[in-house]
């Protein structure tokens, strides 16, 4: 694709497999994506797409066994994370690359006070002494908008609501001012008004600290409002990637189109909702052709037999499809968009 100069993170041909009773599950099977400094990259996919596994691979949190990062490169600031020792990875994890997870209750230790959990991070990574770590913890809680932070810092997770706990998670993640924040479905478990708060918070913190963000979600609305670039994953593969506006204006892949059409539009008149037929694939037993073939509206013989090429549609727009060019052209006509093609 391109040189890694200027890119904060570059994932190349990552393969993470799991050995199960059902056979080898190729959860992530040869994916590549990159993140520029200061950008927000959205990774979109449904269950089984590999979106979470790919990001857990980036910070080497894949349980081994049964999982294993089989091949690929994960270049973070010019260094391949996969070549580092466990000790070296630990210096990066939590310090330079931080992650927040979907369910804040299971990610926070229910037996430890919030203060202890926050202090642990700066004591470990930044060498803060107890008192400095404690004050830093209060400051972080204030930064994420927890009211009466000084009083609440010694609470336990169960004494906070879901939205508050997620804020605590963000506080923990940002404690060491990481260069990269990976947020895995950070708002899925939250009410919609709280979701709006958390997303605004992430946006603001990103502006204030310059952290780059990878946002993993299945919610296309969140993607539209928060991201600069999008990677669409399906069955462990990248199916499409493009700048956000271009992805929505002119998708070049039938799966992306199907996803976009399946989301009910609150401003639209009611009618039958477009549905992608069938079920997400069984990644332990994929056929030779395109993994989306069984569900694709424009499937043809070649799709079932041959794995599709990764076609470049525009400067930063790629699609995994035998008919990527046609799909892209149709999309552009449909939206009457002014997306210009660079050859």
């Amino acid at each position, binding site marked *: 694709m391109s040189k890694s100069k200027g890119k904060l993170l570059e994932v190349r041909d990552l393969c993470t497999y799991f050995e199960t009773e059902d056979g080898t599950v190729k959860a992530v099977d040869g994916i590549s994506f990159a993140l520029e400094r200061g950008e927000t990259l959205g990774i979109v996919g*449904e*269950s089984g797409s590999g979106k979470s596994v790919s990001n857990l691979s980036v910070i080497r949190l894949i349980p081994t066994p049964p999982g294993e990062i089989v091949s690929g490169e994960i270049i973070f600031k010019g260094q391949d994370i996969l070549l580092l020792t466990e000790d070296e990875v630990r210096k990066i994890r939590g310090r330079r690359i931080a992650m927040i997870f979907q369910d804040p209750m299971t990610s926070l230790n229910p037996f430890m006070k919030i203060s202890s959990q926050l202090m642990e991070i700066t004591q470990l990574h930044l060498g803060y002494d107890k008192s400095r770590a404690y004050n830093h913890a209060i400051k972080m809680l204030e930064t994420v908008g927890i*009211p009466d932070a000084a009083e609440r810092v010694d609470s336990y997770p169960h004494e906070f*609501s*879901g*939205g*508050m706990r997620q804020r605590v998670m963000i506080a923990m993640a940002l404690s060491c001012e990481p260069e990269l924040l990976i947020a895995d479905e950070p708002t899925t478990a939250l*009410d*919609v*008004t*709280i*979701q*709006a*708060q958390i*997303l*605004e918070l992430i946006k603001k913190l990103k502006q204030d600290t310059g952290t780059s963000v990878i946002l993993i979600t*299945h*919610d*296309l*609305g*969140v*993607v*539209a*409002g928060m991201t600069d670039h999008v990677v669409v994953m399906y069955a462990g593969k990248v199916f499409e990637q493009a700048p*956000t*506006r271009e992805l*929505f204006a002119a998708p070049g892949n039938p799966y992306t189109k*199907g*996803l*976009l059409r*399946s*989301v*009910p*539009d*609150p*401003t639209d*008149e*009611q009618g*039958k*909702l*477009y*549905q*992608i*037929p069938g*079920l*997400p694939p069984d990644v332990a037993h994929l056929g030779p052709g395109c993994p989306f073939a069984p569900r694709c509206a424009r499937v043809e013989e070649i799709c079932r037999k041959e794995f599709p090429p990764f076609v470049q549609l525009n400067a930063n727009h790629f699609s995994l499809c035998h008919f990527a060019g046609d799909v892209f052209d149709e999309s552009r006509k449909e939206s009457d968009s002014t997306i210009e093609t660079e050859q």
Partner: protein
Amino acid sequence: MSTTPADIEVRRIQPLPSRSGSGEPLISIRDLKVQFGKVKAVDGVTLDILEGETLGLVGESGCGKSTLGRAILRLTEPSGGQVLYHNRDLAHLSVREMREQRRHLQIIFQDPYASLNPRMTVGQIVGEPLDTFKLARGKEAERHVQELMETVGLSKRFINRYPHEFSGGQRQRIGIARALAVDPQFIVADEPISALDVSIQAQIMNLLERLKQEKNLTYLFISHDLRAIRHVSDRVAVMYLGKLVEIAEAKTIYRDPLMPYTKALISAVPVPDPEVESKRRRIVLEGDVPSPINPPSGCRFHTRCPYAIKQCREVEPTLVEIKSNHFAACIRISPDQPDIDIVAPGDAPGLRQAGPTLA
């Protein structure tokens, strides 16, 4: 063991009043209350569910919407109020009498993993209601089950499989088939798509819509997903901390929400369009939903409301018909002054002008 036809007691279907989608109230909920210890989960809800409609019930966690749905069916006991259905008050029927009514009132649950007995096959799960209500036996029951499976898009080959052999979306279809088995008139769909992937959500919504048309059903569709609600509902009712705060036609609620909570709720929904998202002005609420054990005085929303004034703490608003068929509970608006954004600061027109209310 052989049974002669005479031994089989088959309950004849009671003739029901017209199922023509008449628009008349099918279920009338009057001042319904459900209290768990100190928690007033549902605190005086009055609402009609019209025959043939899909009434969307929306609200965030803890607003009482699921409790309301379950209380209608007596899966949770009401602490007060009435649920009128065909001249009977469901809230005060005996266990036996209520069971008879359940023939017409069914539910689809949220969690497709927890709502199916893992030790029963699909055939047994879907067939159980036929047995309970003595509607069919033996071969006839099996045929009925197969038809139901096909109706919901499941191959009848799977009739002897167990729930764990199916995906979430398929399990939800099994739940739907089970609800349809008795040919009900009314179905409470309690967050039926929340646990499913986006592409499967669309399938299930389309299925529910088709079934409604084919079988003349009436739905109470409970969800926190505003986009889904907008798509499936005819009318939408919004709940906050145990109270109804707004009711209107689905289109109207989205185009023209009147009550500040509804406005914030709709504003919070991300729109899958980067152009729109970058330009629109969002209302972001401060703070969390207060505890239902100690709800705020007056209007329960006043602690987070960007338009709250002193009287909002003191007066509990009632649902007033602000525009035609559009009810909202807010003292800062009235039929003469429906737009809260242009009401004079500090003014509460709703206190001066009494509009038609939901009794």
